[in-house]
């Protein structure tokens, strides 16, 4: 694979949280338009990978490189990575009381457009887009006026994440266990939203513990993450294998610390 065409190239990434090494030599290459599923047992480092890529404080990179569109991602501040097109859909979206969804989204879109040297979108145009996005993820329009995630149910929070993604139009979306806590109906809504956003210039990393989500979002590649490394890669059929056999067969030497969350 040639690097010049890749959207994201991770080489031999090592990263730790609170001095505990979680990512231990991870390699991954994603081309525009591809959907990569990352599966693995609890504690394998799945969520950590999302946080490291998006630049969360407290997650330190100890080795390796990550390029997004040929640029050194690890050199960028958290907000610069977002502006470069990286979006993380949170597993547990946090509340920001009193800040309306609309206000928050407009500020985010404004910041990203400004950074890209694009003209600011008018409030009227933005409202139109936001209403359409709201509809698409099956949330009542009134959610635009409510505080960010304030009093939302688990499913509503996930759909709200998706709405943000629709409006920010990122190049690389990392969905961090978006299926957790969702019933089958909500799962379908989220999956449909994601599928509608699949395009030749947008890639996805779908982090999930279960194969279920991948019935709705068909991945191009499936990777198994275990003990901070990708131990197996394949196509969508790998997910079914994992569902049938579990993860144990992939872990040659299950380390004790993997049992920790």
């Amino acid at each position, binding site marked *: 694979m040639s690097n010049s065409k890749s959207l994201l190239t991770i080489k031999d990434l090592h990263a730790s949280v609170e001095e505990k090494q979680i990512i231990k030599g991870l390699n991954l290459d994603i081309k525009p338009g591809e959907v990569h599923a990352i599966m693995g047992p609890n504690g394998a480092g799945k969520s950590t990978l999302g946080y490291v890529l998006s630049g*969360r404080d407290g997650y330190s990179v100890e080795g390796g490189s990550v390029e997004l569109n040929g640029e050194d991602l690890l050199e960028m501040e958290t907000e610069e990575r977002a502006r470069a097109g990286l979006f993380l859909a949170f597993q547990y979206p946090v509340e920001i009381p009193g*800040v309306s969804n609309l206000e928050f989204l407009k500020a985010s879109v404004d910041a990203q457009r400004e950074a890209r040297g694009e003209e600011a979108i008018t409030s009227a145009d933005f409202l139109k887009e936001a209403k359409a996005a709201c509809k698409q993820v099956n949330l009542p329009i009134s959610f635009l006026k409510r505080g960010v995630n304030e009093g939302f149910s688990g499913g509503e929070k996930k759909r709200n994440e998706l709405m943000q993604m629709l409006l920010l139009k990122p190049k690389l979306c990392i969905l961090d266990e978006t299926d957790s806590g969702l019933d089958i109906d909500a799962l379908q809504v989220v999956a449909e939203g994601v599928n509608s956003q699949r395009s030749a210039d947008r890639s996805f990393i779908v982090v999930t513990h279960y194969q279920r989500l991948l019935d709705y979002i068909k991945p191009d590649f499936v990777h198994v993450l275990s003990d901070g490394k990708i131990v197996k890669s394949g196509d969508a059929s790998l997910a079914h294998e994992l569902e049938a056999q579990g993860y144990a067969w992939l872990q040659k030497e299950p380390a004790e610390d993997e049992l920790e969350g």
Partner: protein
Amino acid sequence: MTEQIDKALAREYEAGFVSDVESETFEPGLDESVIRRISEMKGEPEWMLEWRLSAFREWLKMEEPDWALFDYPKIDFQAISYYSAPKSMKDKPKSLDEVDPELLRTYEKLGIPLIEQQMLAGIAVDAVFDSVSVVTTFREKLEEAGVIFCPISEAIQKYPELVKKYIGSVVPKKDNYYAALNCAVFTDGSFVYIPKGTRCPMELSTYFRINEQNTGQFERTLIVADEGSHVSYLEGCTAPQRDENQLHAAVVELVAMDNAEIKYSTVQNWYPGDEDGKGGIYNFVTKRGICHTNAKISWTQVETGSAVTWKYPSCILKGDNSVGEFYSVALTRGRQQADTGTKMIHLGKNTKSTIIAKGISAGKSNGSYRGLVRMNPGADGARNFTQCDSLLIGDQCGAHTFPYVESRNPTAIVEHEATTSKVSDEQMFLCRQRGLDPEKAVSIIVNGFCKEVFKELPMEFAVEAGKLLEISLEGSVG
């Protein structure tokens, strides 16, 4: 993250410039002769001087209060000058054309153009510079509606009956140490009278500016809303950036007659001192209103400035069915100290009060809410709802809540809710992951926290308050 927040908070104080205006300033010091001189400068009638002198004699017997949660060096009241006015004001300019352009420029720089053509149409401004009112705009238009809006020094001469009747009627001379001092030495401020059944046709506002060094500002505002009238009043304040502390001790009295409504909004941005607590205004203010039957007084304040803030805008709910409201945002950073809150005194039947107080502490600052809700024996069916929320930014600041409740009527209902929260790492990460820089992230989170209070402000002020918080929080993120 704390580091970033601190950086975001290390703002420039934009109003910190000094105007080059030649002033006539009293020598520092305070005794009866100083009070006589102030009264003489103002050309006051004898009764006013006597009133001042009796307040001064009371003040001499009083002790400086020390119950607030403060730590600051004792104020030397003999080291303060009690009067300073631009020389150009001596001849009392008749119109804007006669006002020293440097004074007009000062207000323009502060975003308060005093030339009527340039002003926001719906707001009349009384501009007080050190110890005198420089200009009051839109007076003719207000006079057409029967509304009196003028410097209090002028009201004492032109409307002595009104002033005599109401001055000191809500905040008595002996009320407290700083109020007594103000009664003795007050220099200017605004006077408002809204006649019966009149809705004031525009927002009224007073803009206080301290310029001269080593002077104190002691302004006094008196607003009387006669039966069935309505007025919305705004107050703003700034001062130059200096290494010495300066004292500001104001008194505001509101009288809402039967069925009248007064809305009083403040955006306080006195110089807060530097990061290490050097300089800044000591702000000791007594604000109180009295509500007669069915009347309503609503206080809204956004406190971002001053080294020390001691301020409890209060309502005496005397008439049946009267309503008192207090909405407050108090932001402290650096070494600022704020002890602020309200008193709701329920005397009449079915009186209602609402208190929403939001405190934001950052840096090494301390913010306290101190509030009293008193239900007197006659306050049948009275209700109070209080909500105090504190937001902490970083881990070196403090937030404190001192609610006092005295209920002497079994039918009265008092509710109190309080929360303390932090700007969390998760919230910051969410905002930054969506592309907001840390400063914008903090400001959006803090603005959300203050929303319930900001929506009570008149629109122009709400925008200004939001911006002010943004500036205040610049560099506070880490």
